[in-house]
């Protein structure tokens, strides 16, 4: 921990040094931010590896890791480009509708705490396929879950690489593809080289880096702005037409459900819970994670609101996500503004690195286990494949809003893996056939809705239908149901799972009672000395 903060301080010194010798153009600040965060990440990772070698193995050491450090690591891996840049962008673009995204991202961890945290820890599973396959004693379920995890992971990496493209092109003036390629190469190499992942220190460091990177600029901007007369700008910045009363209730509720339930099925979330010594600690860690996330999201929300007041010109779909990067330079003059801008660049770049590498490791683990029998070489090849496929996708498609496309991934996860996990933890009647049918239904329904929704509304990647007021118009309702599908795809998936489990002819595993007992029974207390 002290290593991490020491390195952070060194990084700050390095940034100051780099800028004092350069000609202090914003581009050099941008390069400095990106290079420093990358080097620091690699260094902290290398140090932590040495640390864990000289002390004890990671999984043993994890039992001495305090819950708040563990929670920091969870937050570090979870907070992605969508959180650091996308939230402010959506608030700028959509107004009050965008305020629902940070609420959903943070509250997803409440659902995780309520429904799966302790049981999943007690299951001993490292990945979602591990859990579902063992819970239902079925290889088909395991394989189907693996395929879903891979698809979800790829689609979740895509917005990270898009965020990298945006950040790098703004910060350095390089063409957008350079940022995507840079993050993909760094992540692919780091993961394939066998480092970075499973290292609590690195991800914990990333959380505090990201928190600083949004909190400091937000606070400084508030102080600077506090002395200004808002006047007419404030009146037009928060129009009633985009206010809390103007949001489409269906689309909002559907989005909230997707974000709330999507979190607990994300591929890179589950593995973090194995670093808790027991189920009770898993709950405490999740509670602290909720507090950390709430603290974090206050600041992107603030930046988004400041953006509405002071950067209305950025409120177009192509530019909104850049508001967090550009606003400090506009509001704070001189060197301080440049430094704050570089800090946000560093935080955003850290977000791409940490979330992508967490995802790539989860994916590579699943792929290599399914295809290559879990060998190290298989893992490396799989890691490269896991980065290459999303990179190709990014280079081929038009970027959509970051938080919006991440919202769609949440909807897909919430319709496929989340019902299976929740039912698997709580319902003894679940069968392998029911699980397969439910996953297939949720996946198809969600994919069709998203596909049609994108076709109907060209260029709109967001899950919120901003232009559709609550009209008794069939077309408007259909469009809303396609653009924000979670509200009907999740119940559909659950219904199919339950019906097929009941009447599909299969039966629950013979040892289902023992499995559920393993999931829910508290660990034996430390035996009393006799």
């Amino acid at each position, binding site marked *: 921990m002290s290593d991490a903060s020491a390195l952070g301080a060194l990084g700050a010194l390095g940034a100051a040094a780099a800028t004092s010798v350069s000609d202090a153009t914003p581009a050099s600040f941008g390069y400095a931010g990106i290079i420093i965060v990358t080097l620091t990440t690699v260094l902290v990772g290398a140090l932590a590896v040495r640390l864990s070698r000289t002390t004890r193995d990671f999984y043993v050491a994890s039992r001495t890791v305090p819950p708040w450090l563990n929670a920091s690591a969870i937050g570090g891996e979870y907070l992605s480009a969508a959180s650091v840049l996308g939230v402010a962008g959506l608030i700028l673009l959509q107004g009050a509708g965008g305020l629902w995204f940070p609420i959903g991202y943070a509250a997803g961890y*409440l659902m995780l705490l309520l429904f799966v945290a302790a049981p999943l820890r007690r299951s001993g599973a490292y990945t979602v396929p591990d859990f579902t396959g063992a819970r239902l004693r079925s290889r088909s379920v395991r394989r189907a879950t693996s395929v879903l995890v891979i698809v979800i992971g790829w689609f979740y990496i895509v917005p990270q690489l898009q965020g990298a493209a945006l950040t790098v092109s703004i910060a350095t003036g390089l063409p957008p593809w350079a940022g995507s390629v840079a993050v993909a190469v760094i992540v692919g190499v780091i993961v394939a080289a066998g480092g970075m992942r499973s290292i609590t220190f690195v991800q914990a460091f990333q959380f505090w880096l990201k928190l600083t990177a949004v909190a400091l600029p937000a606070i400084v901007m508030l102080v600077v702005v506090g002395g200004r007369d808002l006047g007419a700008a404030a009146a037009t910045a928060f129009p009633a037409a985009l206010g809390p009363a103007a949001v489409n209730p269906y689309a909002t509720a559907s989005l909230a459900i997707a974000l709330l339930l999507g979190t607990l099925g994300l591929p890179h979330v589950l593995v973090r819970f194995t670093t808790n010594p027991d189920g009770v600690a898993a709950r405490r860690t999740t509670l602290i994670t*909720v507090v950390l996330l709430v603290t974090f999201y206050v600041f992107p929300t603030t930046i988004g*609101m400041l953006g509405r007041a002071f950067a209305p010109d950025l409120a177009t779909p192509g530019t909104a996500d850049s508001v967090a990067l550009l606003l400090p330079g506009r509001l704070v003059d001189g060197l301080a503004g440049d430094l704050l801008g570089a800090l946000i660049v560093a935080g955003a770049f850290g977000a791409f690195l940490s979330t992508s590498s967490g995802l790539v490791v989860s994916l590579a683990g699943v792929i290599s286990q399914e295809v290559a029998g879990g060998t190290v070489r298989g893992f490396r090849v799989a890691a490269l494949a896991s980065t290459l496929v999303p990179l190709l996708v990014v280079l081929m498609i038009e970027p959509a809003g970051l938080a919006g496309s991440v919202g769609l991934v949440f909807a897909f996860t919430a319709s496929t893996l989340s019902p299976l996990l929740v039912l698997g933890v709580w319902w003894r009647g679940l069968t*392998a056939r029911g699980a397969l049918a439910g996953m297939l239904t949720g996946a198809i329904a969600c994919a069709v809705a998203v596909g049609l929704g994108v076709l109907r509304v060209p260029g709109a990647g967001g899950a919120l239908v901003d232009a559709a007021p609550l009209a008794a118009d069939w077309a408007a309702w259909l469009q809303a149901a396609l653009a924000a599908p979670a509200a009907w795809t999740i119940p559909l998936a659950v219904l199919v799972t339950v019906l097929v489990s009941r009447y599909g002819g299969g039966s629950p595993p013979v040892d289902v009672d023992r499995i559920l007992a393993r999931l829910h029974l508290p660990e*034996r207390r430390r035996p009393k000395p006799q």
Partner: protein
Amino acid sequence: MSDDRASGAAPAPGAPGATPASANPATPPRPARVRVTAPRAGEPLAPSAAGPLTGGTPASAERVLVASLIRSQLRVAIVCALGFAAALAAVAFVAALPALNDETIAGVPVGWLVLAFGAYPPLVAIAALAVTAANRAEDQYRALAERDEDDA
């Protein structure tokens, strides 16, 4: 298609006596480095000696206890989830009140501020409540299970 269940590692069902020794491993002064490898299929959820309070197949009295623990935990989860949904709905309703959107603080309509920050206090409060309630349910289970053991 669902009949390809991996034959679940069937452990000796009635071997409760095996647990105490392994639950309390003699800790060596310096544990050897354990290489962490990909978990093998079927490894999770395999019955483990260091795991739950009771190994093996639960006897009928225990089975009732376990079922009631799961029910009370599910009740905690559902009540808390509904509570949070109600809090969210309340925040959305209050934020949409016209009166609050005519008032401004530092130029920002109060309704916007309510929606931006109002959901977080109930979120943290309910999360804390849920942890307390779930831990209490486990304590109750422990007390009942220990009493049963003493009776036996």
